[in-house]
């Protein structure tokens, strides 16, 4: 009888003890999760952008700003470019358009090849593969390349396409301050390009032209 009551007491003590421990674990988990959310970099939501003028759309995080740029190639010659750029979590996202090849579309393969070549020239190439956007007869073929920037300047993943007289480049550079060179975000960015605009996300923001210089 005595032995029975001891056992019952022990069992009776275990219940509240267990609950207490569980409660403490739950509080600690909640606190930990809150701390993790507060210390993690504030990633902005990805938004869709479209240009009906240039017939393409893409997705990027952060605030996309437009500016003018320049490019020079042996085949393409000096070119004015339009650059859409955002920086988020120390990753730079850049879309560069060269829209001046309407009269040289038959040279598109060379212009595209030269742009891709110049991008990787004298850099460590980590990936160089086919790019294809849209299915079947709507396909646009290009290249996707990943390089390491010199002097530990980060890692850039890029895609290049030529369509309707415009050369499109999408480049995402993981900067050293981010350091996560295996981040999926550069891939998400370059693979978000669309040329058949019915496939663009609804509610996409219309891209503006840069201010005239």
């Amino acid at each position, binding site marked *: 009888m005595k032995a029975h009551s001891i056992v019952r007491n022990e069992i009776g003590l275990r219940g509240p003890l267990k609950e207490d421990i569980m409660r403490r674990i739950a509080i600690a988990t909640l606190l930990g999760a809150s701390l993790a959310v507060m210390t993690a970099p504030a990633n902005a939501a990805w938004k869709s952008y479209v240009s009906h003028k240039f017939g393409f759309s893409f997705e990027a995080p952060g605030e996309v700003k437009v500016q003018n740029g320049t490019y020079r190639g042996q085949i393409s010659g000096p070119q004015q470019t339009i650059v859409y750029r955002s920086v988020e979590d120390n990753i730079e996202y850049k879309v560069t358009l060269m829209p001046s090849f309407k009269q040289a579309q038959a040279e598109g393969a*060379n212009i595209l*090849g030269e742009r891709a070549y110049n991008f990787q020239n004298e850099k460590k190439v980590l990936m160089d593969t086919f790019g294809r956007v849209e299915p079947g*007869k709507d396909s646009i073929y290009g290249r996707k390349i990943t390089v390491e920037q010199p002097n530990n300047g980060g890692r850039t993943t890029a895609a290049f396409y030529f369509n309707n007289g415009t050369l499109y480049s999408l480049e995402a550079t993981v900067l050293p301050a981010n350091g996560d060179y295996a981040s999926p975000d550069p891939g998400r960015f370059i693979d978000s390009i669309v040329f058949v605009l019915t496939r663009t996300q609804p509610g996409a923001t219309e891209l503006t032209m840069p201010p005239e210089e």
Partner: protein
Amino acid sequence: MRALTVATLAGATLMALAAPASAAWHGYISHPLGFAFAAPGDLKMEKGTYQAAVGGKHDSIVYRFVDDNIEYKAIVIDMTPQANQAATLLGEAEYIFQDGKKLLMDSFGRVDGHYGRKLTIDLPNKGGRTTAAFYFVNGRIVSLQATVLPANGDFDTPEMGRFVDSMTFYTVRAANDATELPMPK
């Protein structure tokens, strides 16, 4: 010493006799198509067909040589009506070439101001190894393809590279005694 010389000469002769009889390389040029290359063996011209989702269906001209169980082909596909899609048409042809095959090399090609690609693939069912170069010039896809057949077996032979790198689009760079390639009638 005399015996050693005789033995060396005899050995060299035997090696020369035992080696496969490789034909001399010869220059070829097409002024209407705007390119030139070099290849060994006898030239045969054939008609072919090219079909692709974007490019559509097109006749092609195939200049073909076989030497020492290596097949050399220069393929010309006239895409003039769709030349505005040059970049995609070239990319599609390169993609089709390697699709479903083991890709060993995929690199930039650059000849006389024209950018293209050079690719090496292993053919299915131990069918050999092909090195190819693709360019888009004057509305045409121009591709040089060299296939080392299993009967040759030397899949690292430099002959494939020699063939695809012999291409030039400046006719002045063609061999002086280059033979004019025939055009289909």
